[in-house]
């Protein structure tokens, strides 16, 4: 019951959000390549992260008439605003070693721009952003409910990474992949949700930005060339977000530097720090969240994010496959497992044994019984079970069929609420040396436990003999009626 509650929540959340999840995970996967591409770019600051600000200024003085601003855009690319020797005002990406112009600002990939707008706002402006924010929150809930489902299915958190029961392809990989990417999806959805909350101003305000101008006092009137400022010589490019040069040689104008953790104002004549303001924690936290969500600055994390985005696509696909299969299964089982007194579990490789089980189920239901048929590996707690019938073939060299491999282990772990009767039918061929070996193993395991009594002794059927099976069925019905009359 609890499991089906969580499964229903999990499914319901996906139904509401899967369209947007499809869009965001496809675009997300595309966008994850941007930091990778950026990291390999020639304008990337990592190529000269250890150079000092002075080194760069010396290069720029040689190349340009005047520098307005040095900006290390998103801590990655060197961007310059300068007046060229020809007298033109230009802003462009530049080589962090030489200051040489490398690319125009517009030359950012149209694919990334398109994918980003779709990812952020679906081209719907604020409405779109709100939808995406809600989708991120739903994804977080989906990931949480998915985690709960895995824990329930693996019968405890400590078995989270234990072997998964293999029922069918989609289910198996849904869970297998889920165990690895759930944590990443939680991070992606949480940071995405955080970024959109921030967008709508739902987070605490940042500290008031101080009005620097009025507080500045010029105490030192010495004069130095700017490349000789001690501060500029020690400051590494990797610590800088931006450097704005003085607007004019006027005394009231200054250098304004944005470093990774503080804003400082520097006297334009001697390099003296006039004011220093730490960047507030909210802003730093926001940057951290942004980087975590986008993979900015880390190629390996970007690859992880790409993997998680693609895994979401697989989850949607395989999840719906499983749902359709389950709905179909429901039709075939008119009574729920929890409500059925007779449970027939089938171990079948090709499906032949299932046909026997279904036929018997049909007859029993016609005579007014509540009967549930399932895979042998799906053995669980059955609230009203009185009779358990196991029909199984054997696979390979006396081994369990694929849909039965987990049965013995689960039988050992699961305790039914009340005692029940069991009857076991093995299907096989006497041509094989280990005739019906798995059925024998199952029979042995049930006899060893004190949970049930055998209603009939183990029955082995050779080469799918229909008449043998039918006579066994009649015998079973007789026996059951005798026991229930007692």
């Amino acid at each position, binding site marked *: 019951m609890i499991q089906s509650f969580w499964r229903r929540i999990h499914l319901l959340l996906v139904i509401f959000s899967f369209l947007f999840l499809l869009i965001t995970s496809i675009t997300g996967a595309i966008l994850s390549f941007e930091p990778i591409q950026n990291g390999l770019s020639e304008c990337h600051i990592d190529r000269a992260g250890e150079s000092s600000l002075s080194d760069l200024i010396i290069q720029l003085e040689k190349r340009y008439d005047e520098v*307005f*601003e040095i900006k290390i855009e998103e801590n990655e690319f060197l961007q310059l*605003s300068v*007046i060229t020797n*020809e*007298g*033109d*005002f*230009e*802003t*462009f990406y530049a080589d962090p070693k030489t200051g040489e112009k490398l690319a*125009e*600002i*517009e030359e950012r990939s149209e694919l990334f721009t398109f994918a980003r*707008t779709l990812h952020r706002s679906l*081209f719907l*402006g*604020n409405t779109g952003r709100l939808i995406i924010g809600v989708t991120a929150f739903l994804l977080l809930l989906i990931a949480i409910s998915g985690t709960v489902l895995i824990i329930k299915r693996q019968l405890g958190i400590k078995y989270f990474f234990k072997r998964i029961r293999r029922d069918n392809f989609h289910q198996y990989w849904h869970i297998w992949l889920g165990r690895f990417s759930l944590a990443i999806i939680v991070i992606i959805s949480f940071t995405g949700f955080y970024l959109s909350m921030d*967008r*709508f*101003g739902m987070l605490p*305000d*940042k500290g*008031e*930005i101080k*009005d620097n101008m009025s507080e500045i006092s010029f105490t030192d009137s010495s004069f130095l060339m700017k490349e000789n400022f001690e501060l500029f010589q020690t400051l590494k490019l990797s610590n800088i977000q931006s450097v*704005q*040069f003085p*607007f*004019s040689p006027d005394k009231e104008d200054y250098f*304004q530097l944005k470093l990774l953790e503080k804003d400082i104002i520097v006297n334009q004549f001697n390099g003296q720090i006039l004011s220093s303001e730490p960047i507030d924690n909210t802003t730093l936290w926001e940057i951290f969240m942004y980087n975590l969500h986008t993979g900015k600055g880390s190629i390996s994390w970007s690859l992880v994010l790409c993997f998680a985005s693609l895994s979401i696509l697989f989850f949607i696909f395989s999840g719906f496959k499983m749902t359709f299969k389950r709905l179909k299964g429901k039709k075939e089982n008119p009574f729920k497992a929890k409500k059925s007194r007779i449970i027939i579990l089938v171990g079948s490789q090709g499906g032949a044994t299932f046909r026997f089980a279904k036929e018997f189920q049909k007859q029993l239901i016609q005579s007014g019984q509540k009967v549930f048929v399932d895979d042998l590996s799906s053995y669980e707690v059955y609230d009203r079970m009185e009779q358990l019938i196991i029909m199984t073939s054997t696979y390979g060299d006396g081994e369990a069929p694929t849909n039965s491999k987990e049965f013995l282990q689960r039988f050992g772990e699961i305790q039914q609420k009340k005692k029940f009767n069991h009857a076991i039918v093995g299907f096989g061929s006497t041509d094989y040396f280990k005739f019906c070996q798995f059925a024998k193993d199952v029979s042995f395991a049930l006899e060893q436990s004190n949970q049930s009594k055998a209603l009939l002794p183990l029955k082995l059927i050779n080469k799918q003999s229909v008449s043998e099976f039918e006579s066994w069925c009649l015998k079973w019905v007789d026996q059951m009626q005798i026991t229930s009359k007692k």
Partner: protein
Amino acid sequence: MASSFASSSYKKYKCLIQMTNYEGEGAYIVVSLINPKGQYEKTVYVQGDDSEWYYEITSWWKFYGKKRKKLDGITGSTISGGERSMVVLQIDPIKINKGYKLRFESAVEAKNYYKQDVEFSLTTANLQKKYNGKGFIRYVRLFPQ
């Protein structure tokens, strides 16, 4: 960015835009040349490179939005509360001292829009002054190149 078109005949003015300490997204700022009749004549500079939001600068959008001429070489990225940016404005000298005005409009997504955050007459003397803004702009300073 290489906007050398006619730039030789234009006069260049360094322009410093200092924002107030408002909360929220980066501001879009449009600098336009307004003719003596009070109509838009030319877009001088656009601070904000994502044309998705240009419609929020409503008054200018009525002028620009119809044709959407390419804003080659006269756009820059948005700046946020407390930040400043330095740009170069190119002004045709024959428009100076002829009753033209220079208008700075500003808008912040999901916040306010100021049609005349800063506006002043285009005269030689005015092109080297400091102007306090009424909206998101704290002040604008100009300085001939």
